[in-house]
Every structure is written in structure tokens, then in C-alpha cells.
């Protein structure tokens, strides 16, 4: 019974990934701070990564999932660079990174 409990299967991974995804979405939707929003994006990407790795490790044994995960990490790094540069530019222009205050569109 204990073995059955300690056995970590595919569903566990998927559940953690789903929790991560939701937390990421939540962060993404509610953060006022641009850095916080970026953190939300990172969470979502990592949730996806977790799924890739889980399916790769516990699925048919092929390494494609890991490769994609590495790609995603590299993409995320690149995306962070670009995004942080934009945030810095916004800060320089508006002296704030609160995304509500930066909005210039009419209600």
C-alpha cells in the first residue's frame, strides 16, 4: 500500500503542471507589476516544460520531450531578455512599471 502511495506516476506530474499553469495564469492576469506578469509567463512556460518532460520520461522513452523542454528554456531566457529590456524602456519613459498606468488607450 505504501508503495502504491509513494509511486509517483504520470498523473502526479500532470497535476503539478496543471497547478503551475493555473498559478501562472493567475499571476499573469492579476499582477500590476510588469515583472510580476513576466514571472507569470515563466510559470506557464515551466508548466508546459513539466508536461513535456513527464510525457517524455514516462511515455515511450524517446528524448524528444526533453529536447523540446531545453528549447523552451532557451526561448524563455531569450524572451526574458527582450521583455526586461522593454520593461526598462517603459520605466525610462514613464518612471513606472505598473502596467495600468502605462496604458494609453481609452476606456
Amino acid at each position, binding site marked *: 500500500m505504501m508503495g502504491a502511495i509513494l509511486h509517483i506516476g504520470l498523473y502526479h506530474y500532470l497535476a503539478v503542471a496543471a497547478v503551475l499553469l493555473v498559478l501562472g*495564469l493567475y499571476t499573469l492576469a492579476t499582477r500590476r507589476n510588469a515583472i510580476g506578469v513576466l514571472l507569470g509567463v515563466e510559470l506557464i512556460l515551466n508548466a508546459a516544460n513539466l508536461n513535456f518532460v513527464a510525457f517524455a520520461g514516462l511515455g515511450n522513452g524517446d528524448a524528444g520531450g526533453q529536447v523540446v523542454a531545453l528549447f523552451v528554456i532557451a526561448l524563455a531566457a531569450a524572451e526574458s531578455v527582450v521583455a526586461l529590456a522593454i520593461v526598462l524602456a517603459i520605466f525610462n519613459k514613464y518612471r513606472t512599471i505598473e502596467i495600468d498606468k502605462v496604458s494609453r488607450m481609452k*476606456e
Partner: protein
Amino acid sequence: MHEAAIKTIHVSYLWLMPAMPLLGFLINGILGKKLEQKLGRWVVHSTAIGAVAVSFVVACITFASNIAHPHAVLVTRLWDWIAFPGAAHTLHVDLAFASDRLTSVMLMVVTGVGLLIHIFSTGYMASEDHYGYWRFFAFMNLFMFAMLTLVLGDSILLMFVGWEGVGLCSYLLIGYYYQDREKAAAGMKAFVVNRIGDFGFIVGFSLLLWSLVGTWDQVSGLYHYQAAFSPTLTFRNIDALMADATFRNAFLAKHVLGVPVVTLIGILLFVGATGKSAQIPLYVWLPDAMAGPTPVSALIHAATMVTAGVYMIARLNFIYAYSPAAMTVVAVVGGLTALYAATIGLFQTDIKKVLAYSTISQLGYMFIGVGVGAFSAGIMHLMTHAFFKATLFLGAGSVIIGMHHRQDMKDLGGLKGLMKSTFWTFLFATFAISGIPGTAGFFSKDEILWKAFDTNNLLIPGWIVWLLGFIGAGFTVFYMFRLVFQTFYGEPRADEHTLEHVHEDWRMTSVLWVLGILSLIGGYVGVSKSLGGSNRFEHYLEPVFERSAAQIHFLSEEGGHGFMHSMGGEYTLMGLTLLLIAVAIWLAWKIYYNKYRTPEQEAEMYGKGLHRLVFNKYYIDEIYFKFVVNPLLAFTRACKWFDHWVVDGAVNGAAWLTKFFAWLDGGIDAVFVDGLVNLSAHATLGLGRQFRKLQAGRIQQYIVVLATGLSILVIVAFLLK
């Protein structure tokens, strides 16, 4: 054709007489202020006096020429003035100057007295430095220009130009002290009253022009134009036309609404004369005109301008001779004015006011003269009056300057020893105006009174006119000697400071002596036959008046009218006049010699009611104000009210109505038309506002919607499975 009757000699110099003063006016008027500041006053008055002096010299030449050519008119034609080239029988007026013997007498008086008064003015105006020395002389020269245009004008139209010009100068010079409201108002009064007369003058000569070239229908009164020649409106032209029996008979038969046109013309032109020459009923401006500087009163309001009316009637003798009715009006108005103004002169206390009423009265005598047909006697009185009245006014001016601008008798008195030249010349002129035998006024006034008595040319007996003049003569003597006694005799009434500074200016006294002596001897040019003379003056003017003389009737010349219309009658009347003069002088001596009488004492002596009536000039000014000026003002106010409420009201009402409709229209437009347009706009806008919220650019919002939608879809898909 008609000109043939009167010979004309074309000369080149007549235009110089008006032109020189005009030049003087332009120089002083434009540059006078600069000349006075840069070069001094002598330049200003030298220019003015020089201009008049040249005119005087030319006048002397003209006079000599007129003596040499008794029956000719000297003409200087400058250019066409009013002409319609190509059209037949239309008005054709030249700008031309003409001089016959009548003109030459006027020229000598105007330029001679004018020159003397210009010289006098240099003394009188010497202390003037507020109102402009140059302004005074510029206006004086302008006046000389206008007066000489009036006298020399060849046609009635050019005479009218001068006639208006002298009126303007009179206005300008009466209001010379323009900062004094009362004096400025006096100038305005003179101008307005003269305009009333001028209206009569304009209608008169227009009627003359029309009657020369047309007739009025007897029944309907409509005018028919039927010219057979081009009227020129020159005096000699009309004179020649009237000498032509055919034309004359046709002319005299013309009637307007039943009145002979010649009578209408005569009376209307005389209305002009009553304005310019201050006769009843338009004399009221002349006493006020004393507001001007005294040389102006002497030149314009005594010697020259005011005699223009007399000159005009003498000039148009060929019209008046054919209308006994018009002549009766002239003679009676003249007689009434002579008497009436003399009575007002009795109680005036301002020396210039006495002289002003005296002038009105003396002008009355001139009108008696021309009115009864004694044209040459009227003109002679015009000349002698110019001498003695100029002397009197200039003497008054000398007193005013010597006494530091005091001119009321209450401040004068006892000047006999202090102002010797002024006193003696003033006395000479007083003798002349009183008609003391041998002086200038005696010959001219006596001739007029005799002719008035003797006339058989009026619609009323001549002795009525004579009586008016006779009584007036008595009053004249009385007020003049009152003036002399109150001013020059008795104790001086001025304060000591003034008396210490009493002085006479040689520029003034020299002129006074010349004019004073002329007042004494000026009458010898025309001693009548009854006094052993040959009446040279009348003979001199005979060529001018001979054609109308045939129409004028005097009883003595028609024979068989008893003692009073023979030489004996003339001596009897002369004796009566002398007796009257003696009595008047004696009375004045009794009452005023060495005794000053205040107006209150005079009121006691003559009766309070009478004195008050005469002292207040019969309240004529007040009556005019009550019955003419105020009704006119009320009428203008009524017009203003009508204009304001009815005319403006109609305009404003229309404007208001338009505005109201525009407002209504605008309202409909705004509410309904615009409402529809705005409604669609508002609907679009509202819709857009709602939809806009979907595209707010808030990515976080999108994510929420996206996640929610996805969740719903997932749940639905799960449930449906």
C-alpha cells in the same frame, strides 16, 4: 441784341480788386502764424494792408475811368462760369466783373474805408495775442474779397457769391473771440438770421431767371418754358431787356398765382436785404454782432456789408421801378426800422449797442431813399453813413482800448480832456449823423426825407414815410448827444488805475481824423439844387438810373401840387427838421450835460413801464424765442420723437420681427433636424462606447476572458460527454 443798348468797355484790371485781398487772405491764412512768429507782426498787417491798398489804387483808376465814360460799363471777363455749349437758349453766365458809376461809388467806399479800418486795426489789435493777430487780418482780407466780389459781380449769381461770402466773414469775425460762448453764439445768430434772408434772395433771383425765359399759366399756375434767347443774368443785360418795350410789356404781364411777378421778385429780394442790412423783422442779429472786435463792427456792421441790401436794390432799380408795391414795402419797412431802432437806441447803456441800433436806424433811411425811388440819395447816404458811422465805431474802439475794455457808460464819462482826438472826431461824426447843417449827414438825410415827402410813386401817401423818418431823426439826435455827454462829459467814473493809463494810439487817431473830416465835408459832393448846389452826386449816378427814373414819379416834378411840393415846401420841411434837431439837442443838453443818469434814474424820468419796454428792446428777442425759435425747437424735438419712435420704431420693429422668426426657425432646426442627426450620432457613440470596452488593450483582461471562456468550454464539453 439786347446788349446794344448799354455800351461795354472791356478792361483787364477789375479782377485785381477782389484778387489782391484774396491773395492776402491766402498768405495770412496759410502762413500767417509762421510769419508772425518768425518775422513779426508787421509782416502780417503789411500784407493785409498792402493788399487792400492795391485794391484801393485800382478802385481809383476804375473811378477815373467811370468818370470819363459816363454811359459805359467797364467789364473784365475771366471765363465761362455756367455754360451749356451747343445747346441753344440756355443759361450762360460768365465769371466777370463789371463797374459802372454806381459800382465805382461803392468801390471807393469799400476800399477807402476798408483801407483806413485795416490801418486802425493794427492799433486796436496790437494787444491781441490769444486769438491770433494773423487770423484777424486774414478774415478781414477775406471779407474785402467777398465784399468786392459782391460789388463788382457782373451777374446776380456772382453778386450772390459775394453776398454769401460777406455773411461767412461776418460770422467768422463776430465769433473772433471764439472761446467766449456768448460771442460765438452771437456769430451763429447772425449767420442763421442771414440764412433766412438769403432764402428770400435765392427764391427772388430764381424767380427772376424763370420769368425771363418763361411764363406762368393764368389759370393753372403751371410754368411754361419758352426761351427766345440765352439769359446771362448780368445786370446790364436785364437792364437792357427792361428798356426794350416789347420785352418789358410781356415781362410786366407775367403773373404767378395772380401776383405780378415783378412785385414778387422785388419783395423776395428785399427779404434778402432785410437779413443782410438788418431791417425789420430780421435786424435782431446786428446788436449781438457787436461781440466782434470793434474794427469789425465799423467795417462790416456799419460801413460796408450791411449796406449790401441798399446797393442791391439800387443795382436792380430797373426791376423795382416797375413795381410800386415792392417799393412801398421797401420804403415802409425802411421808415419803420428807422424810427423803431432809433427808439431802442435811446436807453442803451453800452456805447457799441447804441451805435448798433443807430446803424439799423440809418440803414432804414437808406431804404427809405431807394424805396421812394431816390436811388442816388440812398446811395449818397450810404456813403456819408460809411464815413460818420465808421468814425463813431472807431471812436468807440479808441475809447474801449483807452479804457481797458470798458464800454458801458457807467464806467466812462469825462473823457473829453483825456482823449482829445477821439472826442473831437466823435463829435464831428455826431454832428454828421444828427444832420447839423453843413455836415455830410445833413445833405444826404435831408434829401432822403424830402424825396420821401415828395414821392408819388408809392401805394400810400409819401408824407407817412416822411413822418416816420422825421420822428426817427429827432430820436437820433437825442440818443447821439446822450451818448456824447455820457461818455465824454461830466466826472470820470472809471477807477483811478484805469484813468492813469488812458491813452490814444496814433495809428487809431490818424484814421479817426481822416474819417472825422470826411464826415464833416463828405456831403459837399451832393449839395441839392435848393441849397444852391448843383447836386453833382446825383448827376454822376444819372446814367445808371436814368432809364428807371422815367418810371419814378415825384409830385414836385409833375407840377401843380401846391406849396408843399414846390421849393417852398422843401425849405419848410428843412426848417422843421432843423427845429427838431435844435429841440433834441437842447433836451439832451438839459438832461445829460455834465450829469450822469443811471438806468434807474432814466426809468424814473421817462416812466417805468415805457423805460422797461424800450430798455428791453420791446422784448423782440424774447418774442422771437417764444414764437419762432421755441416752436421750431419744439418742432425739431417732435421730429426727433417721431424719428426715434415711429421711423426708428418701424425699422427696429422689422428687425425685431426678423430676429424673432430667425430664432423660431433656429429653434425648429436645433430641436428637430439637428435632433435627428444628433440622435443617430449619439446612438453610434453609445454603441461605440460599449464596444470599445472589448478592445481596451488590457491584455490581463483578455487573459481573464480567455481563461474563463476556455474553462466554460471545457466544462461544457466535459458535461456533454
